[in-house]
Each structure stands twice: as C-alpha cells, then as structure tokens.
C-alpha cells in the first residue's frame, strides 16, 4: 500500500526551508528513480503532458542537460531558453520574461541566474513551480542533494560524517547548500581554504573553519573540492595560482591526509592541476562521475514531487 506523504512546497528553491525529514524524503525518492536509469527503456509516463522550461541566465551545459534528461525520462516536454547577454541588454526585465513564460502555461521553470534571490522573487510572481538551478552565491539545492546521494551510496550513511569542503567558499552556492543540508542531517562540516575565502560568519551557520589543508581534511570521510575562479585573483583573494596550488591543492600527497577510505568530490567543471590533480581524479576514490548520474535521479525526484499530487478529485 502506498504511503501518503504530502509535499507542500510549490517551489524548490533552497535547502534552508526544508526540514531534515523532507531532505531525506527527496533523497529516498531519488534512489527509487535511479533504477529507471539502469533500464534499457529509460522512459516512464509519469509526467506526460507536463512542460518544463529551463531558463538559464548563466551558461551551463552540465546542469541544464541533467534537468532536461530528468524531465524527458519522466515523459515531460522540455523547452530550453539560454538567455544571452545581448537579449538582456535589449532591455527585457526579469518580470517581463516570467510573465511571457506564464502566458505559455509552463508547469515548471528551472532557473539559473547570477543574482541571488531571483528564484524566490519569481516564485512569488508566478503560479508555475520554480526550481533553483543556482542563484548567485545563494544556493544550488539540487547539486547539494546529488552530492548527498553520492555520499550515501559510498558511505552508507548521511549522519555523523566528517565532510571537508575546500576552496572558494565565499563565492560558492554549492558550499552553502551543502553546509545547510549536511548540518541538518547531523554531520560535521569543515570549510578549508585561505581566510579571504572563508568569512567568520560561517561559524554561526555551523561550519568549522580551517586555514590549513592538512588540519582541515585530516580524518575526513568526504573531501569536496571547489573550483578556483581565476577572476578572484585580480580582486586580491589570492596572490597567484602557484601559491594556491602549493597550499590547497588536492593531489597525490595531500589526499592522504584524509581517511584511507575517504571519497573525493568536485561539482565541476574541474581545473585539472590546480585545485585537484589528475592523480586524484583517476583514483578510484574520486566519485565525480557518479555525481553526474545521481544528478539526473535527484532532478527527477524534484520534478516528480513538485508536479504530482495536485488537487484530489474526491
């Protein structure tokens, strides 16, 4: 007999407003969907007739394709809109864009935008369900969920783990979402990197801060490596790539500071040789490719939860 669990949120914007139970529930649903990806016929009719629009103001092949695949496997129709800077400079405001979209009766809008708060802003303005595919420096909830699903697959638990996130925390929405989600589930989360990348305020959100790589990833079960963005060098966040790589790179030597069976993750795209080396990427403990598969399953789960249920006919 199917259990009745009501998903009450119209949108999927942040892990901050989900409870621990809700997070675990989404992961549970995602695991069930993983099986579909292993079939020969990777299609189920569940969301037939529903339409999903991906609206990406920032380029991203990986995340967008992942959402597209998830929608298509569930038999939903997809439309992709990549907003190039030129059309934005033509003057169409966000509000006008969303109103035009609503006129097309789209059921879900998956949005990625460089300004924090945009998904929340849109959610208030439209009946369509909004999924946050990354907003500024705020959150990237589906990424954090797929990271958690990956961790669960390799560590068999999502509780009591020591997880170290290394790199440019300040500008990373992935780090934020992971911090929020993993803390809710009862794990120790460490932020590791130079002080310019890790404001003290993160302690108030539950993170432990380390400026030394060796201390930061010592005895860690999971090491998540963040991409170093070259623009930050110009703004004074770090002096040179050479220095950054020398002190914070996860390589053949430094990877051993973590536990013997630790897993290494990276949300991508990777700067090979900079924040992470090929030795680590090719090591069996590096689970970057698994993260990609789980990404589709997580996004299928989110689409399923947002679109099904509806009003009871009884």
């Amino acid at each position, binding site marked *: 007999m199917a259990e009745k669990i009501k998903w009450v949120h119209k949108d999927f914007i942040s892990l901050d407003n989900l409870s621990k139970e809700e997070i675990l529930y989404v992961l549970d649903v995602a695991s069930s969907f993983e099986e579909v990806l292993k079939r020969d016929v990777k299609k189920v009719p569940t969301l037939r007739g529903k339409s999903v629009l991906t609206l990406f103001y920032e380029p991203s092949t990986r995340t967008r394709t992942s959402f597209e695949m998830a929608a298509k496997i569930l038999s939903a129709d997809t439309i992709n809109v990549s907003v190039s800077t030129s059309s934005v400079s033509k003057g169409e405001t966000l509000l006008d864009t969303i109103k035009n979209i609503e006129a097309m009766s789209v059921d879900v809008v998956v949005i990625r935008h460089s*300004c924090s708060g945009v998904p929340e802003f849109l959610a208030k303005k439209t009946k369509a369900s909004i999924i946050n595919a990354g907003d500024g420096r705020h959150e990237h909830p589906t990424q954090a969920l797929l990271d958690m699903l990956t961790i669960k697959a390799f560590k068999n638990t999502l509780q009591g783990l020591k997880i170290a996130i290394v790199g440019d925390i300040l500008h990373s929405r992935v780090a934020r979402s992971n911090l929020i989600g993993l803390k809710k589930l009862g794990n120790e989360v460490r932020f590791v990197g130079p002080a310019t990348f890790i404001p003290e305020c993160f302690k108030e959100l539950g993170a432990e801060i380390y400026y030394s790589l060796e201390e930061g990833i010592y005895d860690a079960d999971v090491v998540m490596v963040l991409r170093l963005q070259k623009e930050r060098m110009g703004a004074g966040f770090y002096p040179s790539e050479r220095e950054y790589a020398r002190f914070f790179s996860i390589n053949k030597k430094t990877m051993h500071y973590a536990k013997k069976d630790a897993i290494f993750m990276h949300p991508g795209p990777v700067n090979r040789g900079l924040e992470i080396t090929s030795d680590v990427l090719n090591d069996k403990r590096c689970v970057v490719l698994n993260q990609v598969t789980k990404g589709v399953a997580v996004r299928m789960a989110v689409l399923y939860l947002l679109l099904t249920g509806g009003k009871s006919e009884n």
Partner: protein
Amino acid sequence: MKIKLNNLTIVTSSGLFKKNLLIEKGIIKQVSDKPIYAKFVDVAIDDKDLLVFPGFFDMHVHLREPGFEYREDIESGMKAAVNGGITGIACMANTNPVNDNAVITHFIKCRAEQTELPVSVYPVAAITKGLKGEQIVEMGDLKNAGAVAFSDDGSAVENSEILRRALEYAKSFDMPIICHSEEKSLSKDGQVNEGIISIKLGLKGIPRESEIIGIFRDITLAKLTKSRVHIAHVSTEEGVDLIRKAKRAGIYVTCETCPHYFHLTEEEVLGYNTFAKVNPPLRTYKDVLAIREGLRDGTIDVIASDHAPHHIDEKDIEFEKANFGMIGLETLLPLTLELVRQGVIDFKDLAEKLSRKPRQILGINPPVIKEGEEANLTIVDPNYKWVLTKESICSKSFNTPFLGKTMKGKAIYIIKGGQFFEINK
C-alpha cells in the same frame, strides 16, 4: 486669516507649555496663559490632546527634479512633506543635471514657490562639479542663489585632498558641508550590511568599516580645516562613538540619523526585500541601540528622513540590481514619536531634532513661538492611528519597508505664510 488655538500644548526645544495662541495674518498676535475669547475667527481649535510644534524641518530629502520626475518632483515631494507635517526641507544635489550651479538652484527655488504649498525648499548644492569628486563648485555664487549647504550625497568625495580644499573654501563663505561618509573601495558592489544576513542571502556585504573609516576621515579633516562638517545618515555604533569623542574634543561636527536606523535591523532584508535596501545599509541590533543612545545623550543632533523615492520598476527586480533608498517624509514624525513613547527621547528633544537644530545648522532662522513672530507651526495629534498604504502616500513612489504598517501620530494642521492648511487623511 484669524486663528485661535486654545488648550493645546506647545512644544519647543525649551519645554512644554500650556499656552493659548491667537494668530492673525500670519503673525502670532497673542501668547496667553488664559484662553483666548476672540470673536469672528476663521479657525478655532480647542483640544487638549493636540501638540503645537514649530514647523518641522527635514534636512535630507531627494526631490529628484530636475531629471528623475518619474520618481518624484518638487511639487509631489512638497505634498509629501505637507502630509508629514514638514514645513521646510533641504533637498540634495544628485539630480540630472546635478545642482552644481546657480541656475539649477534658482530653478528649484522658483518651482517650489510656484506650487504655493506651505513648505520652504532650501537647495543643497553639490561640493564638486557633476558630483565627480574632482573640481569644486562656485560656492559663493551658489550661496547667493540660495544654496544653504554643500553635499555630494549619493556619493562620498573620495579624494581627501579635494575634500580638504572644499572644506576650507566653504569656510570662507561660512557654509556647512554635509558629508556622505563612505570608504568606497570597501563598499563597492556591496548590497546589504556585511554579516550573517549577507552570508545567508548570498549577497556581497557592505562592511561597517566603510562608514567608520569615512566618518573618521571626515571628522579629521573637519578638525584640520576648522570648518563646519555635518555627517549624514549615521548608522553604526562606532560612527556615533567617533562623533561623540570629536565633540568632546571641541571639534565642530554635527550629525544626523534616520528613523530606519533606530527602528530596523538588517533582518528586514530577509526574503530579498528590496524596500529595505538602503545606503548606508540597515545594521545590527547593537547599532540600533547605539543610535538610540546617541539620540538620547545628544551626540546625534538631527533626525532626517533621507527621503529617496524610486519607481517600482527600480525596486521590483533582482535584489542586486535594485536601487538603494526608501521614502521617508511622511513617516518621519510618527516614527520619531515612537521614540518618545519608548522613553528614548522626550517631546522637547523631538522639537529640537526635527525643528530647531536642522535649521540652525543650515543657517535658517528657526520659527519662534512668541508674540510678534511669524507663525510657522505644525499641529500634531500624537494618538492618531493610521495605516501607511499606497493610497495614503502623497509621494509619487511608495518604496518603504513600513508599507502596510500602522503608524501612531500624525500632523493634522500646518499654519504658515498666513495660511491655515488642514492635512487630508
């Protein structure tokens, strides 16, 4: 026009007085302990619950005309002032074109006079041409045209040498300079106060040190040049402290704060509320307490609104793209009355900070309630409850985080220039 006011309480910077007034043709004819029995008056008010103040003055207002009339213009701004019981305003220079020459100053004064509303408008001219921070303006000419102070408000003067020369030059014309104190290299691209809220929302923060360093520099230059510096919109605890120490050391510096800095904290922006996006940003609770203490002990001389109207299309967008600022002419009084109710300041402080002191700083004769003096009065019902709705707002814009909130206290009449105005709503 003959007006008699019986049994009202008169509030000035010196105290509260139960006096009765007779005003005729704009002059206060009688100030009496006994009730006035004049016959054939045009207006008679007898109400022990009402307060009479010398007309309020808001020394930090952005009227947006010329150039940004879609947000506000001189007439609508003056109507908003009337609705707030304000009989005098000083308007800032960041218009388009910038008020950095006598022609614009003259235009603003003329426009204001044309409206025939009971509000005197005093233009504040820019410190530097075009607000570029490079060349100082023709201060003598501007003073003659009617400018009462100089300020690049909207921006800070980044180059200390330029500001120093501007302060010295202004001194020779005995003119005050209003400083928007900000260290721009620290606050650049910042959206909200730097702290836990900026982290939670994923927004670049404006560190408090930007204001602290700015205030310290401006006070130090005030000391060096011995000119009259007025620090605008103080928002930080350390900023208040610096000003307190400077005053004790005998440096001539005055300052102002705004109601949002003593009522709201950075939490107001949660949910990406652009109506709460302002520069300087809303700060923490300990800053609110420090601002209140600064008002209580006299460190902060003036309460002004920093009325900054913006069109809804400039606010109802991505947080990072939204303009900074909130309107405030119509809430200046009730929000300050709230401080009196909470025991932070008393009624005569209110009269001092909202009426006498801002005029004194700008060299304007403050209204005096004495026989023979011109009548420039705001009559207030301190208990009147009303809700701040879009419909009740007289300004063209409605960008305020107090929208929808219930206000207690309203100006209901203005007596000025020989006229009697009943404020609607």
